[in-house]
């Protein structure tokens, strides 16, 4: 976890882009992934572009591996379920877990896998490289009330406090002999009661202090909110969005034209 929530402090080229560029990047990734959802051999290039994006942002690829690794069973099942719909279509490749996997089934299965994972990685880049302060401005710019964005910002700010309090309380209860990390899942769930009770009391005890702080700073006084550091769209943002648009519309165009990397390599 970064300084606040998922944000990772950095001065990379991706960090320096306007958040709106990264939001549009997500939209392009989603659109391209939808178009390529039946062909994993093309959708993989969208995924690779995001891996490059993560590397450019200086984000540890371990994060990506954790996401995929944590749900590996789920992803394999997803690919197999999709592949099972196409058992009788295409060239037979192999049988796995009772599913007759064909080349068409595998292309669809992997295409759907990338349809799930690509937007997730794109959002991961977005939240890891956009400062929570700027998030509020993005919310305002897309027409949401600033209070909505502010609530999210405040939640993210309080998150690190909540998590550190949670860990402290867990340590204290462990020291008192309560097995909060017991191997027995039922015992572990039950032992969270002496963790959650002090946690809620401690954190909610801050509600009045926090609201007084907000009040004395004039929160809610005006319908419009001003920002000390407003978002500024620069030439590098324009260049970035043009490059992003060219790359993803290119992928969409070649896919719609019937191109498939697999069929090109296989010579079918």
């Amino acid at each position, binding site marked *: 976890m970064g300084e606040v929530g998922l944000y990772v402090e950095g001065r990379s080229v991706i960090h320096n882009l306007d958040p709106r560029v990264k939001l549009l990047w997500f939209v392009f990734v989603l659109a391209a992934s939808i178009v390529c*959802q039946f062909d994993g051999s093309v959708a993989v290039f969208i995924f690779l572009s995001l891996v490059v994006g993560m590397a450019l942002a200086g984000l540890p690829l371990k994060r990506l591996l954790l996401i995929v690794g944590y749900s590996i069973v789920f992803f394999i099942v*997803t690919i197999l379920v999709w592949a099972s719909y196409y058992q009788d279509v295409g060239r037979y490749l192999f049988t796995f877990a009772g599913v007759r996997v064909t080349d068409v089934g595998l292309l669809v299965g992997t295409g759907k896998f990338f349809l*799930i994972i690509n937007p997730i990685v794109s959002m991961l880049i977005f939240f890891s490289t956009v400062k929570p302060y700027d998030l509020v401005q993005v919310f305002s710019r897309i027409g949401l009330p600033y209070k909505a964005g502010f609530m999210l910002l405040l939640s*993210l700010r309080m998150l690190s406090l909540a998590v550190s309090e*949670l860990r402290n309380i867990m340590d204290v209860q462990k020291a008192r002999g309560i097995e909060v990390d017991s191997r027995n899942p039922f015992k572990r769930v039950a032992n969270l009661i002496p963790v*959650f009770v002090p946690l*809620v009391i401690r954190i909610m005890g801050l509600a*009045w202090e926090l609201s007084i702080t907000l009040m004395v700073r004039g929160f809610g006084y005006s319908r419009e909110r001003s920002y000390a550091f407003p978002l500024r769209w620069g030439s590098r943002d324009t260049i970035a969005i043009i490059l992003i648009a060219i790359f993803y519309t290119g992928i969409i165009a070649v896919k719609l034209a019937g191109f498939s990397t697999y069929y090109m390599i296989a010579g079918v």
Partner: protein
Amino acid sequence: MTQPFVVLGRDFWFAVAGILWIVGTVIFALEISGRTITRRGIVKVDLRWDAVDVSVTALTAALYGGALAATGGIPIIPGFTWVRPGNALAPLFGMLFGVPGALGVAIGNFIADALTGYLSIGSIGGFIGNFIIAWVPYKFMRDHSLRSPRSLIEYYIWGDIWGGVISSIWCSLYISWWLDLLEPVIGLPRALVWGWFAPWVIFNNAVVTTTLTPILGYLLYQPIKMRGLYWKDRIRFAS
């Protein structure tokens, strides 16, 4: 757990979940805009989203998101089924803090998705689905103290009876319908949505909300009320 979904089939559940989705979305929009449904119809609520409401929402979101992320994933069947004890806080926050608490639960779920790296289009369904888990006991229970037989009976009717039916099933069907509808955009196979995801969400929520929530509610009602944060002490319905 999956039997009712397999026996009744996808079309049945899609139709039922569609109705619940529409009702849930309308309720969410009404509550956020400061209106609520009562026996007298739709009435205005004295909810101004002032500094206190915003603070309560933000703190509950941080608590819920942090609890889900930090205690999430206690495996029952490794790789397939796990419980998230943090879910126990969802109905509790609705009961204690009202709409700001329910909105905090929705934002908290969104944050947990972001923290665990699963934030995507599907999270929009999870946002309102989690709001509903908190909203149902807030709205339908009259006594939120969980310190009287009546309060407990009300909780188990609206919060959890029939294995978490009312709020947990509503939440599960809400999200599942969204995932089914947006299958071409999200990519989850419909068979997996109704055969695995929907029963799993119900199981997951039911396990912790039937066991942990009433105990937590019993222990936390007084401290929260003493601090003046209990929603009935702050929020009034327009006459």
